[in-house]
């Protein structure tokens, strides 16, 4: 068998595996199969961005129509007016939906602005008067113009209704190291308030709050989980923030270093609820760190041992609290790349008068 460091062999093998002779462009066949796309390409264009112009003209006619209705109603003396529903069928007119891919900044017809990262794509609704769009994938920032009615972003995992706001959405669609598919929507609110909902439930998020909508699960924000003690939430948030800042020392500060020092020195018994590893791990740690002379020195070693060298995004998918209320276990997604993730299960325990992270 030839060695693989023979570049010619590898080239030939790759040719054999991947080469395709039977792929030929056949434009006429494509044209015949895609009459709608061809029609959209070849239809007469209004100068400039035809879609935007069409929408604005239609909206202007819509306003005229509404004004006329109001005038007639006033003349015949009806005193109670129902505000015109601009999203109703009478006002919804055909417009062109379009798919936009990042990186770009796009101003919607209502003046709201959506900024798409390089990995992102959205699709506009194509209905005049219907505010919002479909978020297909990637990371987007949205700044919604206030006071113009309902603005809804639909995503594969839930809908986000803006209530006059700035927010960031991220459709995460990847595979964890374990092979498990990771499919979720992350929502971060910068200003105002949003309602996140899907078939499983709904949640309101306000400025500086963020939440997760995993596929087939109710929206979740651990900071709003009433079952969790406030101090535990602070600890979980501190872990998330430390990863986001790429700050290993801040991460290590969530652990009870004094306890770990006593464990390393054999001053306390191993307890699986207080130390995340096995008894063998604890013994190995004691052997490795036998020359450590203080808990401060241990804290430095601990922080330098963790692999947090750059900002890492953490999504907290769920947190479970034990029946006695003293132990918590979370399911988190660590994002390593656009589609590469690791699923982790950090744990916390309440001892020495505080909540401490015991496992990463």
């Amino acid at each position, binding site marked *: *068998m030839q*060695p*693989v*460091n023979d*570049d010619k062999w*590898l*080239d030939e*093998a*790759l*040719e*054999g*595996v*991947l*080469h*395709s002779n*039977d*792929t*030929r*462009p056949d*434009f006429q066949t*494509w*044209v015949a*199969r*895609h009459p*709608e*796309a*061809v029609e*959209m*390409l*070849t*239809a*007469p*264009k209004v100068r400039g*961005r*035809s*879609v935007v112009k069409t929408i604005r003209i239609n909206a202007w006619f819509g306003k005229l129509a509404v004004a006329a209705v109001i005038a007639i109603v006033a003349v015949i003396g009806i005193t109670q007016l129902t505000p015109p529903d601009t999203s109703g069928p009478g006002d919804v007119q055909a417009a*062109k939906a*379009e*798919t*936009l*891919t*990042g990186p*770009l900044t796009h101003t919607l017809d209502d003046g709201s602005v959506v900024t798409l990262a390089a990995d992102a*794509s959205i699709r506009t609704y194509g209905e005049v008067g219907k505010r919002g769009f479909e978020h*297909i*994938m990637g990371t987007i920032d949205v700044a919604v113009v206030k006071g113009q009615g309902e603005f809804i972003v639909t995503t*594969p995992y839930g809908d986000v209704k803006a209530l006059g706001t700035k927010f960031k959405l991220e459709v995460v*669609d990847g*595979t964890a190291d374990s092979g498990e598919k990771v*499919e979720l929507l992350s929502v971060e609110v910068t200003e105002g308030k949003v309602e996140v909902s899907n078939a499983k439930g709904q949640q309101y998020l306000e400025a500086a709050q963020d939440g997760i909508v995993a596929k087939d699960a109710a929206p979740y924000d651990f900071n709003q989980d009433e079952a969790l003690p406030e101090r535990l939430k602070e600890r979980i948030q501190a872990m998330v923030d430390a990863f986001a800042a790429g700050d290993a020392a801040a991460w290590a500060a969530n652990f009870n270093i004094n306890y770990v020092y006593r464990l390393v020195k054999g001053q306390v018994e191993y307890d699986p609820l207080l130390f995340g590893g096995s008894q063998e791990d604890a013994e190995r740690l004691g052997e490795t760190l036998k020359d450590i002379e203080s808990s401060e020195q241990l804290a430095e070693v601990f922080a330098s041992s963790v692999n947090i060298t750059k900002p890492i995004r953490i999504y907290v998918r769920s947190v479970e609290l034990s029946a006695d209320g003293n132990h918590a276990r979370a399911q988190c997604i660590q994002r390593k*790349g656009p*589609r*590469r993730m690791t699923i982790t299960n950090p744990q916390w325990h309440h001892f020495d008068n505080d909540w401490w992270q015991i496992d990463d």
Partner: protein
Amino acid sequence: MEIGSDGINEVALVEAAQNGCLDSFGALYQRYHNPIVALAYAQLGDKHAAEDAAHEAFAVACRDFSALRDKAKFGAWLGGICRNVTWQMIRTRNRPLPVPDQPRNDGRPEERERWEAVRRAVWKLEPPERELIVMRYFNGFSQARISEVLDITPAAVNGRLLRAKRKLAEQLKRGGFGS
């Protein structure tokens, strides 16, 4: 004037197509069809599905041509659409990530064994590396054409290809195909 690697003024073609010229769109189709099929194949591992994805990507491009801001980046823009289309296909069909076609079955048994090992190694690469390898060997596209679709410089294509091949060679060595 933006003259492409093959001497075609692509920006002029894009402008004409945006103004509704079907022939110009046809020229872009001829130019990018195979690279886009290759890109889709790198995601889907199935040539028929890859051709479907490429056809859909061109249809989306037709519908959304007004969204293309930088006319000199048609290939990269189309590549982005293609990736979105393939991810939508994977998601909606709930199919696993790349399930590659079997390699050609016309060689000797030991050759088929090697090809199978190479095929597995290619699909173990990270997606960006897999895209490069598949595009390079699918139809022998030039570095310039690959760089247009992947939106990286030809020099970067060269460097990354070398690294990806090195990684493949290491994987194959570990799998018993080394010296």
